[in-house]
């Protein structure tokens, strides 16, 4: 087994034995389940409410798991000094970092599957159609989680776990508003300010690429090209972030 896989599986094992994960997952499942009850309170189409609430829950709890569990995997390991023995073993630092990242992606995949199954069961119980667009929306949520996890990992390489959580959470919020930055760049009079705003727009993640919930909700068609572009954008962004994280991690001292 490769060293990356050993570290990834150990990270997976660590999280599976963590109570935090269970709390988050159980809460998400409860929320998806309760969307059935909430939907009876509305006059409109019940299925829309359920889809809307369920996708939002899957997204929100996925992000919470990515940030809080993700940061724990590297920052806490540096703070608790458990990393010392690993770095002293014949393992490259980048292998350690990549292993941790892949382990977390595995956790997220398992959790997302669990939440999706729960969501589909609710849909089936209500005899609503299982549209393929739902799967597309969930796939893009997963790509978004991969990006957020990469950011969490990047911050973990040089700051404390608390600060890393705050930074990642901020970037998550900014990432959904970054279109406004571009808009802002257009309206600004001076050229320098426009350049700065544009630079910000292109360096910050644009998480709106991964959000097709509205289209899914109102049954608007989602092209395959849109899906492919968003996936490509996500993977390219991740590659850059991981490279940066690897460089910082390689250079730092573990005091």
């Amino acid at each position, binding site marked *: *087994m490769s060293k990356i896989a*050993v570290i990834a599986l150990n990270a997976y094992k660590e999280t599976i034995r963590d109570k935090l994960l269970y709390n988050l997952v159980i809460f998400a499942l409860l929320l998806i389940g309760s969307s059935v009850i909430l939907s009876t309170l509305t006059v409109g189409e019940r299925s829309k409410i359920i889809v809307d609430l369920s996708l939002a829950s899957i997204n929100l709890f996925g992000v919470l798991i990515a940030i809080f569990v993700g940061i724990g995997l590297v920052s806490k390991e540096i703070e608790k000094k*458990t990393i*010392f023995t690993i770095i*002293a073993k*014949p*393992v490259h630092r980048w292998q350690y970092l990549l292993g941790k990242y892949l382990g977390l992606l595995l956790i997220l995949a398992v959790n997302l599957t669990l939440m999706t199954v729960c969501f589909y069961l609710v849909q089936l119980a209500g005899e609503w159609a299982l549209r393929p667009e739902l799967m597309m929306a969930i796939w893009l949520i997963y790509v978004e989680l991969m990006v957020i996890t990469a950011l969490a990992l990047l911050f973990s390489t040089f700051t404390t776990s608390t600060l890393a959580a705050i930074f990642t959470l901020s970037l998550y919020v900014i990432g959904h508003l970054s279109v406004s930055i571009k808009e802002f760049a257009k309206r600004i009079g001076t050229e320098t300010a426009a350049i700065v705003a544009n630079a910000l727009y292109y360096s910050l993640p644009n998480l709106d690429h991964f959000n097709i919930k509205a289209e899914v909700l109102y049954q608007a068609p989602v092209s395959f090209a849109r899906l492919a572009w968003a996936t490509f954008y996500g993977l390219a962004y991740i590659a850059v972030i991981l490279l940066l994280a690897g460089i910082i991690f390689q250079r730092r001292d*573990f005091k």
Partner: protein
Amino acid sequence: MIVCKQLTKQFVTGLRQRKVLALQGLDLEVTAGEIFGFLGPNGAGKTTAIKILMGLIYPTSGEARLLGKPLGDVGVKQRIGFLPESPYFYDYLTAAEFLTFYGQLFGRSGRELRSRIDELLELVGLADRRRLRLRNFSKGMLQRIGLAQALINDPSLVVLDEPMSGLDPVGRKEIRDLILHLKEQGKTVFFSSHILSDAEMICDRVGILVGGRLREIGRVEELLGRLGAKTVEVVVAGLNGEAAARLRNMAVKAVVSGPSTMLVFDREERVDEALPVIMAGGGKLVSLVRQKGSLEDLFMREVAQERRE
């Protein structure tokens, strides 16, 4: 096995970018098959030096080689075992899972790894705790599983940072025996400690680090020999008053307890002069012990000297 040349580490701490020299020009050589004790008070820079050797931090200047290869060579780590100071481990793993994880990092697996784990758990006396999670381990047990972890790859060089700290006398003896056992197997052991009696008992050579600088290095007997003047402690019983008074003048220290008197002489010749007085005074010689200087004396002298500088 280990060669350090002018190894220096400067830490920059706090907002004011205050510079702290943790290690200054460390020159050190550890040869194959020896037990080397790296001694010094807390904050002397022992852990800093070890962390540089293990690739956890980078030196500011100077260089070091492990098993003939420069630092950072991942291949060399295949043959090194390391136990960090007051080790923190994955407490969600059981003892067997923990060792399996480290074994896999060395590319080991299957039956070979399983039998190695059984062997190590037996060696460190944790065979009956293999299914217990590390979070339920006592400090002594953690130290022992940490040692097992350091030996999983059957290393030729074992580096231990404060392996005896925080352990009771029984635990310390167990670790000492283990280190001697490793030497018998032809391994080189490099360990840091501030427990001098332990080091004195098992080390071939020691280095004394104070304030980031190596103050002494050499064979234990050699260093103790350099301490010079040894004292002699004589205990006598049944002395008459006159003889007792004369002896008190000759000794540097005299303590009377009941019928016996303990006299400390600073030179051996003094004892030759004292013996006839004891006999004439009706005294009986109970014991005569030559006090060797200990590593502790040397250590204290170096620390005191460093403070004066």
